[in-house]
Structure formats: structure tokens, C-alpha cells
């Protein structure tokens, strides 16, 4: 697998679209390309951020935050 092919595959990997039989080749290439591969994968995760930012934010109820913060404070005290 060339590095260009690895980049294409990495983009499929980060969105969880690799098939099992592709994973093996991907992991081998990942090991072979080392740090360069890890940096490429880290960059590909920017796709996640972009897909989320493409959505119109949705409203959630104030009660959710109250419950959350109460649980967090309890956990911290405990």
C-alpha cells in the first residue's frame, strides 16, 4: 500500500467504514508508516468535527445541564 492509498483508507477508517478484510492491510501499513501514519489518522479525525459542524445546533432542555452538573459535583465530592 502506497502512502496515498493509506491516506484514502485512513479516511474510511476514521468514519468506521473499513471492512474487516481491509483492516488487516490497513493496520500493517499503519505499522510500516509509523508516526507519519499516526499523524495522518489524527488529521483525518478533523472530518468528524466538520460533519458535526455541518449540522444546525439543536436545543436541549435546561434540566439536562442541571442534572449533569449535579451528578458531576456529587462524583467530585464522593
Amino acid at each position, binding site marked *: 500500500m502506497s502512502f496515498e492509498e493509506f491516506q484514502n483508507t485512513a479516511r474510511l477508517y476514521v*468514519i468506521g467504514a473499513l471492512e474487516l478484510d481491509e483492516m488487516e492491510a490497513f493496520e500493517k501499513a499503519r505499522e510500516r508508516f509509523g508516526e507519519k501514519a499516526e499523524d495522518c489518522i489524527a488529521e483525518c479525525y*478533523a*472530518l468528524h*468535527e466538520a*460533519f458535526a459542524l455541518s*449540522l444546525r445546533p439543536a436545543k*436541549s432542555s435546561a434540566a439536562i445541564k442541571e442534572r449533569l452538573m449535579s451528578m458531576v459535583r456529587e462524583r467530585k465530592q464522593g
Partner: protein
Amino acid sequence: MDHTGTNPIKVENETIRPFAVTPPVEPGAPSDFDLMGRIQAEDPEALSQLYDRYNGILKALILRVIHNEAEADDLLQEIFMEIWNQAKNFSAQKGKPLGWMVTLARRRAIDGLRKKQAYARAEERLQSQTEQQPDAWVHNATEEEIAFSDTRILVRNVIDRLPPAQQEAIDLAFFRGMSQREIAAKTNTPLGTVKTRLELGLKKIYDGLKELKDEL
């Protein structure tokens, strides 16, 4: 770390910067990295601020996966609790806080969908929502929505430039957690074509985002 809150990465004697479309933060407000650092130090106020900044985006993402308002609210709460509990596992070297949170939220939402074995019911609801209200996320603008609207429009422009078949394949993979084979079966398309659509579409978005970052 520079003033944008972006960590440069050293690669083979060369510094590269992880690209990402950065949502605006008010002048003087703590960066996402600052907030994550404080959450790692168990400061509840930092989690409160991070929640205010991103609950709308994460809820929209969850809703896009599970199509159920009440379940989305419950999951949103669980996800922020997980952010609190797992904050120590966040590494600024590996990416940005929003990317980490989105990855976590997407995984939880897709897991939730699978656990309930609700694919069929969600599909029916999605179909019905799409028919009744093409833009199901329309509501009165919130402060958060206004803050992110420019970024959203720019990112959407990148995605909307893709051919519909590529958009559909990416949508099914990212928001529904479908494998290439599942997408091929659902869209009645050869597996090789699905793979090509995903590869081409993701590359175009990736390249488009890089250009966008330069513009921003």
C-alpha cells in the same frame, strides 16, 4: 500551543498543523484546550462552559443518528458525563477537544441505536420526518446557533458540492454507522462503487476543509 489553540505536530523535522474548521470563541474566553485542561483537573465550571459551547452541536449529531428527542437528551447527558470521567484520556497531541467529543458522541449514539435494534423504526421515522419537514432541525436561532452559523454554512458548502450519491454514502457511513457492505445492500449498489464513492467524497471534503481553513 499558539493563540488559536492549535497544537503543531512535529513530523520528520517538519512542523505540520492539524487542520480543522475552528468554531469562533469570544475574545477573552478560554480556549477548548484550556477548558479540557481544567476538566482534567476536575473543575466542574469548565465542564459547564464546555457544555454551553457545544451541547447544541453534539445534540444535533445524536439526533441525526437516533431521531428521538428524549433519547437524545439522555444520551447528551451521558456523553458529557463520559467527557468528565474520561477527560484524562484526552491528549492534545492527538487532536482537538471538539473532534474528541464528536468521536465519543458519535460512537455512543451509534451504539445506542444498535443496542435498541431500532434501525427499522428509526428509518421509518426518518422517512416520515423527511417527507413532512425537509429541514427537520429548523427552530428559533439560539446564541450557540448564531455563533456557529458562519462555520456551518462554510462546511455545508464543501459537503453540498459533492454528487448526491457520494453524500448519501458518507451520510450512511458516518451518521448511521453502516459498513460498505451494508451501504451497498441498502442502496442496491455494487460494493466497489460504494468504496469509490466514499473515498472520492471523503477526499473532496478533506481537501475542501484544508482550503477552508486557509480562508478562515
